[in-house]
């Protein structure tokens, strides 16, 4: 005989009790390991999905500009494989059925792209000409088959921003008819997509050369796909070594006769970053740099005469150029701000003399391409001879449609030109001097007049470099080119090298820790299982009270006895933890099945599959075991405290007479916990320092503890005889029976408290979850709601350059009369959009570069939507928190608004916290959340003021995102008309209510998951309750037998026992409901309209009814067994 033999014997003899404990541990282990495995599966599935769409592509060079396709050939020796592609978004429709898909990935590719296919057969040889290959998702979407024709509509890349005068607003879109020659599965490169998202992308593949032709970008691409060579150096270095000025849209032109070199941009204006680098490069070369700003004057007027359409050059008053200008007499000229120089031709035409008043009229571009004619008056400082430096058309950089046309009458500028005003002498001037300026003003004046509004695009049309000393022009050009290239990094120029594989892996981790999420969802299930383990072990230990008493009586120390019991429990727990792994696999597979089917609204990820890591298995088993051990210790706590003599007598609870000290301790705990919980929850009304989850979980838990402690106090008071007990009424039979039952409740205070705690916890969880379920409010026109009063949401693949709110804009967009009529009754709020990853709960991936919207002033003034929290400090800001976007924050931080759910769960940030985004030039820019929206259709978007947006993303021109406020009756018709009329822009309109319902569906589905698992926990808890009830009945069977013997009917007996258990159930329910209602008070106060009250009240009424009925059924069955034999044994 030794202790291990005794352990084995006890395990075998008490196998039923140990089996029950093992099953409880299995349940806890299954929930815990299962949650970890769900997290593994989500991560693995998301990563596999994101990586699978990349083929063998490791890195991508991409940016907002097009660059030379030849760059790929130059880089090829440095990398394994490389494919230049064009990657855009557009709309595709079936040529016959007109079925349409917007937000389609348009990919201009050649065989080099398909060579990067990772597995299986590729699409074969890429066809040439007007052909297209569709992926299966797109083919299904628009019902296309091989041989069908599709119409491709997409935005045309613009060198010159449409926000500026020379932007081609009239040529923003293009279309092409293509024949479908292939349909590839939507997997591998057939689902190529850089923005990580779980939705299968709709892709259309066009031959690269065909798309270059369609876009009028011959020999150019906007992305390079790269497969790494193992020994290759950093791609960024290779790129920096091979990239040229042309790839940045820059040209260095030398004008030997004039003796200067000029840096010019395809964008017409030189971007500030390039200009700064060029000035530094010029300094390094010892050259004198000089900015020139050329502009078009609609009219130069003086003394009642005018000259139409003339170039005016703004030059530095102290620069090199002005020193080279000469009067007709050969004298030097001078120019001061407010003065103008006319060339001899213009001076003659206007017949003006020095000091005359000369007026310039010119276009200024406003919002939405609006052109305003503005005028400025100058004093004529003199006349310059139209020779030498003044006879230079190079003041104006090339501009297609203007500088390259033979005749002035052939001009095709992007603004209205009145050709009737042109005279023969103007044509002659054009024939001889082309764009040679007819007037010169100071650079300071030019910048003030023409560049101030769009300075983010640049203030210079060309940067002239004048060699100094003995340096010749060719040497200067070569040196300057080298210096300039060393100062512009591809990343700063918008050619970013993105390690897409790393990004996909990182994004695949998910925006949410799914292991944590499902542990949270399963939390109550785990707790219930652990409580069940503790309860079963306790009941088992109590059954062995004699045995424990004997061991103590024989001299075993209490610690040794405890160790022996825990060792037995540990064996059961160990087996349970191991078997829990298997059950966990099943649990995880069920969860994944649920997420792919019933709960698909939450994740939209049909590609989810089971995957587990060794770490999760080990962790799951270890945590389960470690959590079970304290439960076992708690389980024997009661018997361990009893003296041997009491245990030998079969007593398992403390003596029936207690001191009041424990009750006082419980009362103190109750008050302290109540105060702490209330303070936490109340704090959310007054400060943002306490987050909503902290207030709910922290405050709710504290209140729950307070309620349970109060129950303990009451039970303690009952035992002390100071509670509500009174004598049994003799006149009212039923009431007497109920009182009799109530008196039994404190007999096993530990068990009674456990029942109350379980019921209270289950009630708290289910009630609180129910309160968080959301339903879109009925009144969609309410400005302060989830839709903000907007009926429709629209998004265009190609930004609209005109205003939908004005008749002129609607005309420019060529809208149908009915559309114009409906828009007349509507308001469209246009936002600028920087595309990126949706940071909404619809996207499981971790957003790396979230979408950003530029909020127009009109929206800021209008206001609307409900705010969960703001940093509003003034009454005006509190009245309209949108105005917070205009705040000036220190250190260049930009105020931003986001939806609370996105900010909290997707971006893991919060009110008052900063979040870093990358601007167009690759620089990190800090946003600070000054307000958080509550349950809005803007979930997934980061919102900043439009003027700040334009600074961050100057290349984003036009508006691509719209909130449309229209009468609900017009919504469907307007939606259809806009999609039809604006098809060239791939305009996609959705109902705001549907969008809100989709977003709410995600939250509600997660809550359903939580509620279901919480319900499973409650079910598990109810097994514990049944075990306790049966145990109580068994222990008191002699008592009940006596009652039966003295004439109690079975019904009366059930009434007595039920009264005891119903008191506990109702007590638990009351505590749970009260704690939940107080904990969710902030949510109810903030958003009562969205609380689904009906189901919640149903739940509150149903739970006690169900609990009492279940208890009645169990007790009736238990008491039906013959009791009198128990009495005879007595």
């Amino acid at each position, binding site marked *: 005989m030794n202790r291990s033999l*005794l352990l084995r014997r006890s395990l075998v003899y008490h196998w039923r009790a140990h089996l029950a404990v093992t099953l409880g541990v299995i349940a806890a282990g299954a929930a815990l390991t299962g949650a970890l495995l769900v997290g593994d599966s989500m991560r693995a599935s998301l990563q596999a999905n994101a990586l699978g769409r990349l083929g063998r592509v490791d890195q991508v060079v991409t940016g907002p500009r097009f660059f030379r396709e030849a760059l790929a050939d130059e880089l090829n020796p440095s990398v394994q494989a490389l494919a230049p592609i064009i990657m855009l978004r557009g709309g595709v429709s079936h040529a016959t059925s007109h079925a349409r898909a917007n937000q389609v990935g348009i990919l201009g590719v050649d065989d080099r792209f398909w060579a990067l296919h990772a597995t299986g057969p590729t699409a074969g040889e890429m066809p040439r000409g007007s052909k297209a290959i569709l992926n299966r998702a797109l083919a299904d979407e628009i019902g296309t088959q091989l041989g069908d024709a599709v119409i491709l509509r997409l935005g045309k890349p613009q060198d010159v921003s449409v926000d500026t005068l020379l932007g081609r607003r009239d040529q923003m879109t293009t279309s092409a008819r293509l024949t479908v020659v292939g349909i590839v599965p939507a997997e591998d490169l057939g689902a190529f997509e850089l923005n990580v998202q779980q939705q299968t992308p709709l892709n259309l593949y066009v031959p690269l050369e065909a798309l270059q032709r369609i876009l009028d970008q011959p020999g150019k691409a906007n992305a390079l796909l790269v497969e790494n060579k193992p020994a290759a150096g950093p791609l960024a270095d290779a790129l920096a070594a091979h990239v040229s000025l042309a790839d940045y849209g820059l040209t260095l032109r030398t004008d030997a006769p004039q003796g200067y070199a000029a840096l010019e941009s395809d964008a017409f204006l030189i971007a500030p970053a390039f200009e700064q680098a060029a000035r530094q490069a010029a300094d390094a070369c010892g050259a004198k740099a000089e900015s020139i700003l050329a502009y078009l004057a609609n009219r130069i007027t003086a003394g009642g005469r005018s000259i139409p359409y003339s170039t005016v050059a703004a030059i530095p008053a102290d620069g090199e150029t002005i020193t080279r200008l000469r009067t007709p007499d050969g004298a030097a000229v001078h120019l001061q701000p407010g003065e103008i120089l006319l060339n001899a031709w213009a001076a003659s035409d206007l017949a003006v003399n020095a000091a005359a008043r000369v007026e310039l009229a010119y276009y200024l571009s406003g919002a939405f391409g609006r052109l305003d004619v503005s005028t400025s008056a100058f004093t004529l400082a003199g006349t310059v001879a139209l020779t030498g430096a003044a006879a230079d058309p190079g003041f104006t950089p090339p501009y297609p449609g203007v500088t390259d046309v033979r005749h002035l009458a052939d001009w095709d500028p992007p603004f209205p030109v009145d050709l009737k005003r042109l005279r023969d002498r103007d044509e002659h001037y054009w024939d001889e001097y082309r764009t040679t300026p007819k007037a010169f003003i100071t650079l300071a004046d030019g910048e003030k007049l023409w560049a101030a509004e769009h300075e983010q695009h640049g203030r210079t049309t060309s940067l002239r470099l004048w060699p100094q000393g003995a340096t010749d022009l060719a040497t200067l050009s070569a040196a300057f080119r080298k210096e300039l290239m060393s100062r512009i990094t591809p990343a700063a120029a918008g050619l970013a090298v993105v390690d897409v594989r790393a990004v996909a892996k990182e994004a695949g981790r998910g925006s949410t820790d799914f292991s944590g999420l499902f542990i949270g969802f399963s939390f109550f299930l785990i707790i219930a299982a652990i409580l069940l383990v503790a309860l079963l072990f306790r009941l088992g230990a109590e059954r062995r009270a004699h045995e424990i008493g*004997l061991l103590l009586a*024989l*001299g075993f120390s209490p*610690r*040794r006895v405890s160790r022996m019991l825990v060792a037995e429990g540990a064996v059961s727990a160990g087996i349970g933890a191991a078997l829990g792994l298997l059950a966990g696999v099943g649990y995880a597979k069920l969860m994944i099945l649920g997420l792919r089917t019933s709960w698909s609204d939450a994740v939209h990820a049909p590609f989810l599959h089971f995957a587990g890591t060794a770490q999760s298995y080990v962790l799951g088993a270890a945590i389960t075991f470690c959590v079970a051990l304290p439960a076992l210790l708690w389980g024997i706590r009661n018997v361990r405290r009893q003296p041997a003599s009491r245990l*030998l007598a079969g007593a398992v609870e403390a003596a029936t*007479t207690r001191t009041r000290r424990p009750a006082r301790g419980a009362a103190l705990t109750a008050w302290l916990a109540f105060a702490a919980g209330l303070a936490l929850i109340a704090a959310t009304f007054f400060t943002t320092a306490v987050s909503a989850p902290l207030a709910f979980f922290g405050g709710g838990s504290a209140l729950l503890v307070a309620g349970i402690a109060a129950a303990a106090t009451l039970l303690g008071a009952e035992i002390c005889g100071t509670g509500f007990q009174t004598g049994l009424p003799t006149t009212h039979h039923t009431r007497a029976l109920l009182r009799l039952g109530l008196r039994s409740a404190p007999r096993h205070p530990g068990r009674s408290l456990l029942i109350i705690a379980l019921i209270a916890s289950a009630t708290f969880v289910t009630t609180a979850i129910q309160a968080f379920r959301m339903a879109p409010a009925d009144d969609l026109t309410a400005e302060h709601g989830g839709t903000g009063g907007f009926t429709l949401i629209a998004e265009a693949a190609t930004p609209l350059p005109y205003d939908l709110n004005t008749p002129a804009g609607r005309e420019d967009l060529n809208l149908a009369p009915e559309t114009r009529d409906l828009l007349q009754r509507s308001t469209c709020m246009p936002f600028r959009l920087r595309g990126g990853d949706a940071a909404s709960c619809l996207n499981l991936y971790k957003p790396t570069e979230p979408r950003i919207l530029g909020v127009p002033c009109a929206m800021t003034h209008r206001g609307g939507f409900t705010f969960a929290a703001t940093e509003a400090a003034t009454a005006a800001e509190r009245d309209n928190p949108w105005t917070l976007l205009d705040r000036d924050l220190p250190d260049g931080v930009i105020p931003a608004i986001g939806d609370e759910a996105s900010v909290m769960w997707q971006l893991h940030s919060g009110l008052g916290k900063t979040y870093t985004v990358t601007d167009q030039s690759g620089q990190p820019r800090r946003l600070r959340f000054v307000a958080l929206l509550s349950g809005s259709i803007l979930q997934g978007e980061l919102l900043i003021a439009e003027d700040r947006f334009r600074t961050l993303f100057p290349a984003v021109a036009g508006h691509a995102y719209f909130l449309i406020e229209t009468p609900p009756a017009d919504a469907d018709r307007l939606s259809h008309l806009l999609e039809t009329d604006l098809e060239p822009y791939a305009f996609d309109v959705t109902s705001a209510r549907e969008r809100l319902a989709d977003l709410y569906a995600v939250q509600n589905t997660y809550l359903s998951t939580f509620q279901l698992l919480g319900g499973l926990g409650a079910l598990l808890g109810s097994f514990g309750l049944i075990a306790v009830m049966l145990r109580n009945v068994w222990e008191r069977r002699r008592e009940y037998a006596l009652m039966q013997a003295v004439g109690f009917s079975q019904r009366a007996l059930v009434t007595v026992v039920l009264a005891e258990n119903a008191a506990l159930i109702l007590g638990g329910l009351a505590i749970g409901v009260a704690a939940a209602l107080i904990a969710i008070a902030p949510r109810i106060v903030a958003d009562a309209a969205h609380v689904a009250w009906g189901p919640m009240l149903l739940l509150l009424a149903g739970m006690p009814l169900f609990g009492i009925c279940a208890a009645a059924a169990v007790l009736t069955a238990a008491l039906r067994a013959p009791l009198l034999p128990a009495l005879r044994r007595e």
Partner: protein
Amino acid sequence: MLDARAIEKSFATRSGTLTVLAGVTLQLENGASAAIMGPSGSGKSTLLNILGTLEPPTSGALQIDGRDPFTLDNRELGVFRNRTVGLVFQDHHLLPQCSALENVLLPTLAGEADPAAPRRGRELLERVGLADRSDHRPAELSGGERQRVAIARALVNRPRLLLADEPTGNLDRRTADRVADLLVELHAGSDLILIVVTHSETLAARFAQRWELADGRLERQ
């Protein structure tokens, strides 16, 4: 030697303090045997629990072989009881999962391993007439046999004090006589102090001293 002086034991109840033992004094030399009798609720079992160090008195002093066990901490008290006191209960309290021999050896597991214990256990089973039943489980033994196993268990650590609480209370008369014979036989010639609490006049008559516990006081008959 057992020396209990002015032992008092009282319990707090809802209706006030209930005094069960009101100054019990009992001194027994080594080798003495005594029977304690009294009506139900007179505190016999409480007194036995105190003498067996299972619970402390409210006041008074207890010394066994010159040591006051209630000055020891829990662990030391356990060791003391294991080495000094043997207990026999009315309900024998055998572990159902263990054989007769294993039950006898159970007290030896509380302390350091004793290689001689198995042999001693078998000898004791032989002395109580159950040598051939050593591998039997309690469920396979009769009531008298179970009580004999319990007696053997009480003696396995060679205690100084053997306390038996109604050892024959659950047995028929014939079996009770046998168990009584056994107790007397085992005690005879040893310096073991034997105290038996019983209702049975017959059993009490088998011991040298007889005491009556009434109204919380112990009187020698």
